[in-house]
């Protein structure tokens, strides 16, 4: 009896050590789900200082991918943005076919000028816009995407890709490699 109990304990311990490892979410393969979202009807501002009515902007005919970043972000945003740069490079001259939208979660700091500089650093081409707005509106947008971060330092790596169905988006969380991201977006085009 004791022996089998010890055995179970050993098994459980081994299970815990090997399965539940103290690694970050970012080391695991990315997680993908389909979510229903309601985009708030707010007016944001892009890197050219132009007003953008978000709901109509995201409901365009073009395939759309959205991420949440900020210009002075240290770890996650550069990876997300490198992902967009890579995507645009792979699309080549077709980069304008896709609408890539980065939305700031530091609207106090990220002015059009700063956002433009950020896009230049990432060699953004036509088709990739960076949006800012008032704090209240940006909070509403985060809530609309069910991606509200009360504190920008605790944000998560997220991409949202709009599917063909109204209000339905693919939600990608975690570090996603270039090939997979391109595939996710291609899938929404071909649907």
């Amino acid at each position, binding site marked *: 009896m004791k022996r089998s109990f010890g055995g179970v304990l050993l098994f459980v311990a081994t299970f815990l050590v090997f399965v539940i490892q103290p690694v970050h979410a970012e080391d695991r393969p990315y997680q993908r789900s389909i979510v229903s979202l309601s985009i*708030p*009807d*707010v*007016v944001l501002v892009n890197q050219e200082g132009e*007003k953008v*009515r978000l709901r109509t902007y995201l409901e365009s005919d073009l395939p759309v991918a959205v991420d949440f970043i900020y210009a002075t972000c240290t770890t996650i945003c550069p990876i997300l943005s490198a992902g967009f740069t890579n995507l645009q490079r792979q699309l080549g001259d077709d980069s304008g076919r896709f609408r890539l939208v980065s939305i700031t979660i530091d609207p106090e700091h990220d002015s059009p000028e700063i956002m433009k500089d950020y896009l230049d650093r990432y060699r953004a081409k036509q088709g990739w816009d960076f949006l800012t707005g*008032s704090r*209240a*509106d940006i909070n*509403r947008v985060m809530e609309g995407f069910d991606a509200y971060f009360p504190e920008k330092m605790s944000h998560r790596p997220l991409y949202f890709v709009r599917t063909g169905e109204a209000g339905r988006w693919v939600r990608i969380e975690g570090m996603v490699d270039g090939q997979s991201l391109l595939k996710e977006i291609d899938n929404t085009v071909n649907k």
Partner: protein
Amino acid sequence: MGDPVSPAGWDKLAYLAVLVLVSTFPVKPAAAGGDATRQQGKEKAFMVQEYRYEPPQGDNGNLDIGQSLCGTRCNAISDNFGSYLKPRNWRLVKIAGGVERSVALDNPFLKGNCICVGDEYLIDWYDPMVPQDRAGAVGKQAQQ
């Protein structure tokens, strides 16, 4: 019971006097400036959740800029949670959700109204040293 003038009687009188005296003490100790600041300002706070522009009759030429300016207008009348919760002794108690407040856009170049939709909160001053019914306090518990 002895003669009130006797020592035992004086004891009882003393106790009675103390009781009477203590019962005249205020129940809530008044914190410095508490009552004064409580009277200041308004009773309710309003936190806007969404907004929409209502153009004047028959004039649909400026819907996008109207929506943008209504965003500014409604966000401006919206109160800031932090400015209530950070100072000591204040809390917010949600009393209504989805309330629509119509305000004139008030822009010299564009007519129309803004409908600001939001939640109403009672602004409540309280003394943290006195036990409170915390069920009504703002926070996750208060959100339906």
